[in-house]
């Protein structure tokens, strides 16, 4: 069993949740958690750790974070390090990455392969499209 956990600053993860639900409906293995700066950091860490832990023993998790080096990613890295299941943390999340993470969840041969597919989808979706419909 695999799962995806989206961890961001306040606003973004819940925005993603709304958009994903409108586009493809609710997803059973997709979780969202966001960091509000008024919240104690330890509470936030415990919540992310609980999402990583709450699974079968053989589960693998991909944590998608918004910004390299910022609090959500740092907390995700700590949660990944203390996890007994395999976890990879990616940064720079966009919509294409979440869709790819969901679509490739079952097909990817291992966690590393899954992460590579998600990164590739995220990066290839970034372009100047101004002249694309000419």
């Amino acid at each position, binding site marked *: 069993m695999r799962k995806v956990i989206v961890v*961001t*600053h*306040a*606003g*973004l*993860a*819940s*925005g*993603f949740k*709304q*958009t994903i*639900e*409108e*586009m493809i409906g609710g997803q059973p293995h997709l979780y969202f958690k*966001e960091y509000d*700066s008024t919240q104690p950091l330890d509470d936030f860490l415990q919540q992310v750790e609980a999402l990583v832990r709450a699974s079968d023993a053989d589960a693998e998790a991909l944590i998608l*974070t*918004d*910004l*390299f080096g*910022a609090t959500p*990613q740092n907390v*995700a*890295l700590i949660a*990944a*390090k203390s996890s007994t299941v395999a976890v*990879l*943390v*990616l*940064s*720079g*999340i*966009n*919509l*294409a*990455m979440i*869709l790819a993470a969901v679509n490739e969840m079952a097909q990817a041969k291992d966690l590393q392969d899954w*992460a590579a597919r998600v*990164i590739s989808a*995220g*990066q290839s*979706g*970034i*372009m*100047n*499209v*101004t002249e*694309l*419909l000419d």
Partner: protein
Amino acid sequence: MIGVLLVSHSDYAKGLKKSVEMIAGNNEQFQALAFDEEDSLDSLKAKILLSALQLDTGAGVIIFVDLLGATPFNASVVCAKQLEYEKHDIRVLSGMNLPMVLETLGQRIQPNIELDTLYPAILKIGTSGIQEARQYISENSSC
């Protein structure tokens, strides 16, 4: 100053704007729009045109869209084309993420910055901001 508009299905654009404001505070000439279930393509285009016109003070506008090939993308590109005839300079960039928007807001305050030099740097930041952090963990695991 170059205007910045975020457009997505549902609340992703508004959520991204909120996260940007948590990190970088409130910014002028910065708006987010949702393509809601009750919207038609025409009503979305009307919202984009109105926002783009409000945001353009002569330096042009960057419209960030959520996904390549979907409705917010289509509507934005059509609006950009229409505004071009009215001498508004608009660029539409797909695959928006937090690093791209933060970089844009940081760079657009530079003196004499222009859309044509700004947008390639934004695309690069967006792409390089997508990475795996495992190497980062192993490099820091001894700390």
